[in-house]
């Protein structure tokens, strides 16, 4: 049937969704540093907001250091998994700029709610990078204090944390902690796949209705395990925000400067009482979903290569070199620092002891439970019965 034919017969819908192109085609990106390392002074986002950054040379170098370190520590964790020291690892390879840019945009008082992949944000929050490795090694379930570092625990159930973040943000409003420069804001991280979850959509509703000081930060790395973006949406994700009544913007997630600028603006808007916003950091997962995944089953090498050309670290390096902000000595020094820190990480992971089995009974309830006390005692007696035997 010809296009536009108003004929009454049922049209086949077996074809791809109509706006397929919109979901993956030419994205409107906020970008301040091109893949070729060229600086763009300022950019206007879809809602008319102007984005720019004004960093000192020292700050540029600091961002580069963060990116390199985060990548190196991630590579070390991947290697540790391959050697059987971690049960599994969710690598952030390719997503360093999205995480460092947004992580550095947080102010001390801001609270972050991560998924299981936010090792770069964790690093920016000042948490020892060994911390998430306990979870992936299977010796604990994440060991840092979320209140101290203003970085919540990793969340594996997809999307659940977006509601916690929204509730936390509502609490900020109730506490009257918005409306000034030292007001608080909240950022919730999630993936493109997560946008399909009920929880995430409910979080959008709540944040909008309660004008919560929230930034929804979606790292669109193009896949949810094997499923490409088109399996989750037929419009660009940032456009979803409009339907919930708050602004959405798509930023080049491989551009640390743009990610920083966009996140800083959104957080500042939130802290000043202007409510939530959605950031879609358009990026790419260069490796496997996790070390248990086999990406060759669902994506082709040329796609990966195309994204490698947009590497988030290479473009900063080119820029620093071109602008003579950093020299060869600096780059060598950073590489050496990254090497040292990864060796240190490895040594400490290998030294991580298994927990005492009886600790599994700890912290089930703040007020304890007679049932558990009994089970713990029984368990201890049972374990003692093996002592001295060849068991």
């Amino acid at each position, binding site marked *: 049937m010809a296009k536009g034919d108003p004929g009454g017969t049922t049209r086949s819908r077996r074809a791809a969704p109509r706006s397929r192109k919109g979901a993956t085609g030419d994205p409107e990106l906020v970008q301040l540093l091109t893949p070729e390392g060229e600086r763009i002074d300022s950019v206007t986002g879809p809602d008319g907001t102007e984005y720019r950054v004004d960093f000192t040379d020292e700050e540029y170098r600091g961002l580069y250091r963060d990116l390199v370190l985060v990548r190196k520590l991630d590579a070390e964790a991947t290697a540790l998994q391959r050697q059987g020291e971690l049960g599994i690892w969710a690598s952030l390879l390719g997503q360093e700029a999205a995480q460092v840019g947004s992580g550095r945009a947080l102010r001390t008082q801001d609270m972050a709610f991560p998924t299981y992949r936010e090792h770069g944000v964790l690093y920016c929050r000042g948490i020892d990078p060994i911390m998430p490795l306990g979870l992936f090694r*299977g010796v604990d379930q994440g060991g840092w204090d979320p209140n101290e570092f203003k970085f919540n625990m990793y969340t594996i159930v997809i999307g659940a944390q977006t509601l916690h973040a929204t509730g936390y943000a509502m609490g900020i409003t109730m506490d009257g902690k918005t409306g000034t420069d030292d007001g608080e804001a909240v950022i919730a991280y999630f993936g493109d796949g997560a946008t399909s979850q*009920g929880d995430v959509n409910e979080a959008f509703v709540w944040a909008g209705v309660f004008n919560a000081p929230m930034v929804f930060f979606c790292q669109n790395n193009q896949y949810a395990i*094997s*499923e490409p973006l088109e399996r989750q949406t037929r419009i660009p994700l940032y456009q979803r925000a409009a339907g919930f009544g708050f602004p959405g913007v798509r930023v080049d997630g491989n551009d640390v400067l743009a990610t920083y600028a966009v996140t800083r603006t959104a957080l500042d808007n939130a802290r000043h009482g202007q409510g939530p916003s959605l950031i879609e950091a358009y990026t790419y997962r260069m490796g496997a979903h996790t070390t248990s995944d086999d990406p060759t089953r669902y994506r082709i090498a040329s796609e990966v290569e195309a994204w490698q050309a947009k590497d988030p670290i290479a473009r900063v390096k080119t820029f620093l070199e071109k602008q003579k902000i950093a020299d060869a000595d600096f780059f060598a020094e950073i590489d050496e620092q990254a090497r040292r820190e990864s060796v240190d990480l490895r040594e400490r992971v290998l030294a991580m002891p298994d*927990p005492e089995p009886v600790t599994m009974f700890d912290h089930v309830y703040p007020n304890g439970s007679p049932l558990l006390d009994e089970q713990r005692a029984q368990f201890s007696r049972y374990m003692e019965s093996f002592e001295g035997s060849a068991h």
Partner: protein
Amino acid sequence: MATETLTIGKALNTGLRRALENDPKVIIMGEDVGKLGGVFRITDGLQKDFGDQRVIDTPLAESGIIGTAVGLAIRGYRPVCEIQFDGFVYPAYDQIVSQVAKMHYRSRGKLSIPMVIRIPFGGGIGAVEHHSESPEAYFAHTAGLKVVSCANPQDAYVMIQQAIASDDPIVFLEPKRRYWEKGQVDLDAPLSDAYPLHSARVVRPGTDVTVLAYGPMVRTCLEAATAAAEDGRELEVIDLRSLSPLDLSAAYESVKRTGRAVVVHEAPSNIGLGAELAARITEECFYSLESPVLRVTGFDTPYPAARVEEEYLPDLDRVLDAVDRTFGW
């Protein structure tokens, strides 16, 4: 007779393939079930052969998977939903217990929801949190649902097809740590004549103690029985296969002979299936019992970090210990 050696995972895959071949209304839906073949590869190759209209990669939304499957079922399809891991069924829990389970009842029999909800369940694979859970009691407690679990490749192959053919909504629990275990499968086993879906089976006869288990623990109990035999004790091991409804006729008959019963499951004991089994056996076999029915289970804690799960999960020693205790009364 076409007999092949298959793993439980491959037997499920073969059973699903048969179901897709035999009934054009059968559709498989879930996260990553297509090109990837599921994270455990249980649906491997099915999308390639049956197309993406019948083996559907769904958006990442469990409530959506089950909820839309309800509509598809009302429309005459037979959806087979894969929940990627036990810990991710809870976003769909509302749809399962409030909608799937009650449709038939609420419509006074006018609607049926012939749906299968496949869930890899239980521990033993050293995974991170939410990847090792034992949610069976939640579902078995819900009227309107049926709950089954396979423990060997032959059952995996037959039971998945029987479940799909059934008009009841069925929660199909797959013992994920056993996916890679092999056994003989008779591929020609006719489904209607084969062992009925909701029946228990004696998998090792014995005279001294009756041991009841299902899913991943069946294997553990068989190993315990082998070990006990070396000490001169004969354990009779019963694979329950169906958790709702429970088929306890074999168990009653067995306990009346042995006088002793041990129930083994990975889920926590408190308000769990073991409690139901112990109560029913006590009611039915009171005068034959030489000792109380004992339970060997996981503990009443959240599933612990992987490096201590060996202590959390019932193992051969804990089963044998319980067997010893039944003789201490």
